[in-house]
């Protein structure tokens, strides 16, 4: 009984450390899988996410990419990545010229304060990037009364 409960207490920090290392590895992996050795441009993305969120259960974000959205030149995908979430690739939006504008918004969960990355891929092989640091007061992984 004593041994078991001591083990349970000891296991918690170990598990947490393991989880955050895995998340960091997944984040780097997810970034690599999208970038495919391309280096991203900065500046073409207007990325709106509050710098401080009261609640990680629901954080509003919007992404607008400066693109003509023509057949010749358009955004094909917008990705949202969260550095310290258990699943770093939060969402991928697939667009066509029929979108008219490269503009999306959604609500995400954030486990903790971290870096959020928006990537936009174009049909010409260009990748745009924007990064924001967000502070989360209450993470998404808590449940109270």
């Amino acid at each position, binding site marked *: 009984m004593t041994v078991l409960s001591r083990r349970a207490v000891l296991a*918690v920090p170990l598990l947490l450390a393991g989880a955050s290392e895995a998340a960091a590895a997944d984040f780097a992996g997810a970034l690599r899988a999208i970038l495919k050795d391309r280096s991203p441009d900065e500046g073409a993305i207007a990325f709106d996410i509050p710098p401080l969120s009261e609640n990680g*259960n*629901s954080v509003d974000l919007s992404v607008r990419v400066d693109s003509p959205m023509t057949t010749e030149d358009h955004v094909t995908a917008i990705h949202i990545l*969260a550095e310290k979430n258990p699943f770093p690739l939060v969402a*991928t939006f697939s*667009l066509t010229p029929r979108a008219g504008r490269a*503009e999306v918004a*959604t609500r995400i969960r954030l486990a903790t304060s971290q870096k959020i990355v928006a990537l936009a891929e174009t049909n010409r092989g260009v990748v745009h990037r924007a990064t924001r640091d967000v502070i989360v007061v209450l993470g998404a*992984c808590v449940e109270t009364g």
Partner: protein
Amino acid sequence: MPTLPITARITLPPSAQRGEVVTVRVLVRHPMERAVDAPGLTPLPRKILHTLRVTYAGEEVFRMALSPGIAANPYLEFTTVATETGDLVFTWEEDGGTLYQREARLVVT
């Protein structure tokens, strides 16, 4: 595969002119169970809507891959060029393969 109805709220402008870029807003009722097992959290098996496809008058115009990092009762906003009066059909796929569908009509003048 048959589709099931789902509670959703799709907001479109009452009408649009041909060529106008319209904003589409969608709220859909789903708990987006993450299967996170943390202290103080009730562990439930993962069950999320993982894909949304949107067709407009029969042609796919938008697609989203959702992860457990999308908030419960997912909210989404995107744009589409008004081409003709027709239905936007929203199809969500849930873990396990269940498909849910809702439609909204875009009136183009």
